[in-house]
């Protein structure tokens, strides 16, 4: 499979993502410019990645303007055909703004930009240590949407403490129900606030992110 990393004006984790995929995970990766539209060399087996950063300066709302960039029109089409799309941090915000994922990311409840390692847990009870770095990461959706997400098993990661307990203190941004990452109903679009690409290399002292990218993206289905 191939990966394409979209570069928006203001993206700043695009190189980290490229480097993690190419060098740490040995994948075929290309960068995609936001003004282009061409995804013809990607099949639905491949994965388009929306990286972290501050696309369009976070003007208006995080991800709001990126959603209307030419490349995003192709990404939305690609996702609707069943192609895999993975958004991290600002990429998650763009996926919510574009309607590919439900809900929205609001300003952190604690009025702070949070930049630290946090713990997140998947539905298989595995706990990962992954860095977060965001000011607008408080996941929010109405009660009905949240109940549907949970009923369909679409909540992929929740913030927890080191022992895997979902506590208020382990939630870095006030996210509803400790939600850190979700997928869509078809399970081909996935967004998360923490940065697995920053935790893929021994030299960085943390490789927990490698497993997340391997199991989520390189499996036949984006999320099992």
């Amino acid at each position, binding site marked *: 499979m191939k990966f394409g990393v979209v570069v928006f004006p203001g993206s700043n984790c695009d190189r980290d993502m490229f480097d993690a995929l190419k060098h740490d995970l040995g994948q075929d990766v290309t960068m995609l410019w936001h003004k282009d539209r061409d995804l013809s060399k990607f099949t639905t087996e491949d994965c388009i990645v929306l990286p972290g950063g501050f696309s369009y300066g976070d003007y208006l709302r995080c991800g*709001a303007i990126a959603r209307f960039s030419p490349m995003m029109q192709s990404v939305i089409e690609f996702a609707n055909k069943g192609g895999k799309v993975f958004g991290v941090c600002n990429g998650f915000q763009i996926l*919510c703004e574009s309607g590919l994922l439900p809900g929205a990311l609001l300003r952190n*409840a604690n009025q702070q930009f949070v930049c630290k390692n946090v713990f997140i847990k998947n539905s298989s009870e595995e706990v990962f240590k992954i860095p977060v770095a965001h000011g607008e990461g408080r996941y*929010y*959706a*109405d009660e009905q949407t949240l109940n549907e997400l949970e009923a369909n098993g679409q909540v992929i990661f929740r913030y927890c403490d080191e022992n895997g307990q979902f506590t208020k203190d382990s939630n870095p941004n006030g996210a509803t129900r400790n939600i850190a990452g979700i997928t869509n109903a078809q399970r081909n679009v996935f967004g998360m606030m923490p940065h697995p690409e920053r935790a893929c290399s021994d030299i960085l002292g943390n490789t927990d992110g490698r497993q997340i990218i391997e199991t989520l993206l390189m499996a036949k289905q984006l999320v099992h």
Partner: protein
Amino acid sequence: MTYTVQIKVMPLKELLDPQGKAVMGGLENLGLSGVEDVRVGKNITLRVNADSPEKAKAVAEEASKKLLSNQVMEYFEITVN
């Protein structure tokens, strides 16, 4: 004819507004009394060329629904002059 359209975008009333909370703290430091709550939103001005105020409002409504606001977290109000 060109109409000036004001769009007020505010965080939904039931949602915590951390920006408003921070500004509230600033007002308290200023020594002002009596301010009980602050919520911060945006005011967006459009100049719209349209045949009627209704048509100008319709354009602003579409802009507000699709880009200027996110109805998951905000509501908007439109005034046409």
